[in-house]
């Protein structure tokens, strides 16, 4: 927060990508908002599964606001979605709200359920976008990626294709999402996808680095981290420059090198400004 307040030029507002709480508890949401309180900017929030699955977003709504909404700013149309909903029968099957919350908070849990935007909200989105010119730059903020990456960890939105279809008619669309705690970027049609870093819960070190067995799913590529003694390494946040109508993310990565991922108009996709060429990449660590 303190660092964000020092930004120059000043940002117009802050987007918070969700998961302000761990287990949806009131005191966690209060504590998170207290931590955010020094921010000197208007803040727009997205809802994460850790905020939601205890009381289905009731306290979050009371403290923060509606679960999905849109607004216009300097010629850009912003949409904030609740992308972490799931099937009603799953929601209703738990003996207690905390059982439900604990299940959704875990990874690789076969009892879990995939995230989705859902019919009702997609219909709202369709009507919201109907009012917007196709030439208007569109930015969508959601907690989970509105694309399908890895289902076991809900790096995934079950109805991603249907949401993408609603966004497809627009000339310039950028989807920003949280949840994954790592830098991801992708292009599907005219839609750019960029993830936010997280300020807490760094990904674990690769097994070779930690010198201990890893319990990451086999599909997961461990994150390269500079130095195991830096506790803030692999956390960070980003300044998003949207001047061109496309996003450029300037990642501030604590105890590590900063990175920039920006849309390249020539290639029509987001690209890392340092590591994009294959020979500029750091190979995954395979030894200590």
């Amino acid at each position: 927060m303190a660092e964000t307040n020092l930004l120059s030029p000043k940002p117009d507002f802050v987007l918070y990508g969700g998961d302000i709480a761990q287990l949806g508890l009131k005191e966690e949401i209060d504590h998170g908002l207290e931590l955010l309180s020094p921010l000197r900017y208007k803040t727009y929030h997205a809802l994460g599964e850790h905020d939601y699955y205890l009381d289905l977003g009731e306290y979050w709504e009371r403290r923060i606001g509606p679960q999905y909404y849109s607004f216009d700013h300097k010629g850009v149309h912003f949409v904030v979605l609740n992308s972490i909903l799931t099937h009603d029968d799953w929601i209703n099957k738990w003996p207690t709200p905390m059982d439900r919350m604990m299940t959704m908070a875990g990874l690789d849990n076969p009892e879990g359920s995939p995230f989705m935007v859902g019919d009702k909200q997609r219909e709202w989105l369709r009507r919201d976008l109907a009012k917007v010119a196709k030439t208007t730059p569109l930015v969508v903020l959601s907690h989970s990626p509105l694309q399908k990456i890895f289902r076991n960890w809900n790096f995934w939105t079950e109805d991603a294709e249907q949401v993408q279809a609603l966004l497809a008619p627009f000339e310039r669309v950028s989807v920003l999402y949280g949840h994954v705690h790592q830098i991801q970027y992708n292009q599907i049609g005219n839609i750019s996808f960029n993830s936010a870093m997280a300020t807490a819960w760094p990904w674990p070190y690769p097994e070779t680095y930690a010198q201990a067995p890893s319990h990451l799913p086999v599909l997961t590529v461990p994150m390269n981290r500079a130095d195991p003694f830096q506790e803030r390494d692999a956390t960070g946040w980003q300044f998003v420059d949207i001047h061109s109508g496309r996003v450029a993310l300037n990642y501030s990565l604590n105890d590590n090198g900063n990175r920039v991922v920006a849309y390249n108009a020539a290639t029509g996709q987001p690209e890392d400004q340092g590591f994009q060429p294959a020979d500029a990449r750091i190979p995954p660590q395979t030894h200590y």
Partner: protein
Amino acid sequence: MKFRLSIGAMALLVAGVPLANPPLGLPPVPVPADNPQTPEKIALGERIFHDKRLSATGEVGCVSCHDPAMAFTDSPKRVSVGVNGLTGTRNAPTVVNAAYMKSQFWDGREPSLETQSHQPFVNPVEGGLENHAPLLAVVRSDPDYAAAFQRVYGKAGEQITMTEIGQAIASFERTLIAGNSPFDRYHYGGDPRALNDQERRGFDLYLNKARCVSCHVIEQDQALFTDNAFHNVGVGINQIQDEIPPLASAFLEAKRRGADVDKTVLTDPKASELGRFAVTDDISTVGAFKTPTLRNVARTAPYMHDGSLDTLREVVIHYNLGGKSQESDRVNPYLSGGIRPLDLSEPEIDDLVAFLEALTSPEFAATTATTTSPTGDEDHEPSTVTAQLPEAGERDRSDRPAAAEPGAVELRQPESGLHFRLPLGFPHPTHQGD
């Protein structure tokens, strides 16, 4: 039978000669390929280091603030005093072992020893010269200097520039190396008696509960006591934390308009507190300073970049409070994540201080030539004297190896009165890549 060498308050560093084998606890000195060590160049650098003529008043040289008798600092001054009694904003770090640092100055604004020395001559609160021209005029015309530059570089007149001067000073500084402290003899030298019980408890705290080692690094075969990184540990900035946002933008604005970082941070006390940010413009480095070495720290009070803490005990209390010097202070929001309250008890604080006092190299261990050694008791009891001030509380190290190494001769250099120890038959310098 015990004996104790009484050593004058003079450096007994292996100065003036290329260093072949690093002392216990230190790696070989990195020497850049384009500035190899030679005895003549080292001697020239030493001479410049001691030459007070090369300042606006003829009264300030490197040695004024990096005094061999004070472990190459200006202890006990809080901040350094330059020409005409002008004071800067920062405490002079030791030059001893600076050769191992990956960047120079508290904020790392100079990348090498070769370039670092260009600054003090022309800083308004240090050497006070307008520019380097008067200094170059002296070294180009002085017959002794002219002969030395000719010998070392084969250069004369206009060919002598700040590059040659910086190289010579750097070569001299690469001989200011000191290890072989009681800690080194205990940890690397296999002498279990080199640390007493209290110091050993302090060492354990240093590695574990107090977590000092995460920044002041000790490795398997060497200890530089620094990670060469920059951290905000809550010194100086706590008091002005609410002013940081306007200060930071004013500084960036001034820098865009061409303000000199070296001059600004040493003359403007508030800009000084911006730390590494002043160099990188990176907001994650506000109030961050370079982790200093802890070698010989008992000899270099006061402490921290602003000299605001008088004793090692105050330093440990600052860490114990989680990055603030007084209970009533408020920690600053840019504080390093590695700084948390430590919950050390009073005896544990004493133990940790005792450990820090065991990092003194033999060259700096003695007090004055007149010190008489206590006789008799060599038992290594925990000292009841904590070093409150640099002068106070000299420990009895009578049962420890004496300062001199076998096979060394002591020379007195007539000019400066400094003692130098020349290891017999020192071989040619070794050059490591950087």
